[in-house]
């Protein structure tokens, strides 16, 4: 459903600040894939997401979503297919607006008209969705989102993202800024939504254990390249030590990320 061919990204080409963030890569994401992505800092993971989402244009190559060439399409056009969550819980919601207003803005994609959709029926629907989170948010629908905790905000972002049933969701370390308890909660919710709505998903994480435990396919990135792409039984049999070894075998150096080893 997503097909990248020869996609690369160089920032500030031809200047002293030139950074090759992504070398030409090919990648096909099939419908129903749940891909976890690991790699050290600066490996190009977020850049890959930004290129797929259209935050900035690719330096080369082509990107197709559902066989539509979107290489040159602006971000808001591609957003119709894509749901995205960032590490920072503040980025997914409008803090100065009420919870229900946030949900209204997100529950359907595309430009909004002069209708007043937020009626009793829709509120009731939002309420049942919030009850499902089991965070008591259903009683706070008129509160400003700013008043919620980071974990609550990220869970809400997740809920709002799946409301519009995107075809692909991209999660960029979306639990990294949360404390362990909230991180586990949000991660659990993520898995539930992905299974329930059969969402095609890509998830960046620094936690190797997580990358192994979740999803049907694992990508390892390093210095702007995808150096490992495993799935199925091979993925299921992976271990943290095994991954570290394979990295060494491919790159002939140690995986430097300490935090990856820690967990």
């Amino acid at each position: 459903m997503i097909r990248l061919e020869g996609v690369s990204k160089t920032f500030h080409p031809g200047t002293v600040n030139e950074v090759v963030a992504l070398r030409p890569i090919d990648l096909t994401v099939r419908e129903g894939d749940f891909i976890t992505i690991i790699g050290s800092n600066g490996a190009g993971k977020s850049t890959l997401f930004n290129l797929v989402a259209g935050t900035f244009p690719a330096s080369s190559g082509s990107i197709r979503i559902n066989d539509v060439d979107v290489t040159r399409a602006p971000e808001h056009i591609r957003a119709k297919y894509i749901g995205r969550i960032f590490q920072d819980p503040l980025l997914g919601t409008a803090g100065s607006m009420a919870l229900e207003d946030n949900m209204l803005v997100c529950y359907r994609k595309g430009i909004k008209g002069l209708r007043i959709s937020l009626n009793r029926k829709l509120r009731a629907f939002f309420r049942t969705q919030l009850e499902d989170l089991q965070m008591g948010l259903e009683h706070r629908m008129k509160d400003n989102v700013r008043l919620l905790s980071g974990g609550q905000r990220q869970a809400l972002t997740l809920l709002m993202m799946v409301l519009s049933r995107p075809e692909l969701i991209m999660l960029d370390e979306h639990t990294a800024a949360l404390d362990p308890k909230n991180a586990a909660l949000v991660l659990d919710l993520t898995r539930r939504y992905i299974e329930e709505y059969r969402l095609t998903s890509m998830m960046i994480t620094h936690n190797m254990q997580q990358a192994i435990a979740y999803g049907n396919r694992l990508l390892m990135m390093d210095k702007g390249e995808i150096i490992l792409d495993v799935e199925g039984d091979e993925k299921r049999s992976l271990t943290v030590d095994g991954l570290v070894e394979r990295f060494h075998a491919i790159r002939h150096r140690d995986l430097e990320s300490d935090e990856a080893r820690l967990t």
Partner: protein
Amino acid sequence: MIEGILVEGLLYGIMALGVFITFRILDFPDLSVDGTFPLGAAIMGISVVNGVPLMLALFIAFSGGLAAGAVTATIHNKLKVPNLLAGILTMTMLWSINIRILGNRANLPLLRQRTILSAFTEMISGVVPYPWSVLLFFLVVGLTIKFLLDLFFRTDMGLTLGAMGDNEQMIVSQGVNPEIMKVIGVGLSNGLVALAGAFAAQYQGFADVNMGQGIVVAGLASVMIGEFLIRSNRIGLLTLRVLLGSIVYRGIMYLGRYYGYHINLTPNDLRLLTGLLIIASLAFSRYQNSRNESARLRRSIRAAAGPPGGGRP
């Protein structure tokens, strides 16, 4: 006196609502306002003098403001210049355009011309006597616009505009083109400002290219004063406090104008006073924020230290 303050407060309150939309809801500080206010006045003035149906004239004035706001937003969108610069460009160009609209003059008197305001006050003169009929007129107009605006900001589009001002990435991720939303939002804001200008021309009995000077700052002062009066996140109260803030601001200006001589103030000092008012508001809200911040910090430290008496964390 009191009715004069209320009338001016409501009249300029319509303009302040426009300023509120850009500065507070869209987070798009827009200075075109200094040009769109006289634009509305000029369109209304020239239409009145030439016998254009009054309601049509009002509509053209609103549309003129809308178009000017759209130009500002488009300059910002397409040339990627900061919104302040885009607004200044539009404002500067409008000065020349306004003089052209007025027929190559800077001022157009409207005395003894039939306007919407004069038609209304005459119609109800039997029931409500003169200065109060003007107040009633602006009360009706001001509140009507306020309620229409409240309604707009409850629509899907209105909520999306609010979300964009808060977090642009969020609405881009929802598949909404932020450039179009800015054209709509800044356009609506300037439409309201031009409408206020059109009413100001009727109230003052003339249209003048310079009547917009310093209008943005006056609107901003009104918005900020209003924020001290009511704290809320409900749109109905947000717009209400803009109107109230505008009335208070006009009251302060009135006091400065008529009693300022006791402390050697002249009418020329009123802009200085307005600027100081805004600075004082900014300083005060900073002080409040830092107090809230430290209160929150103290609370969280206390929470981290565990409940008093050494209970479980």
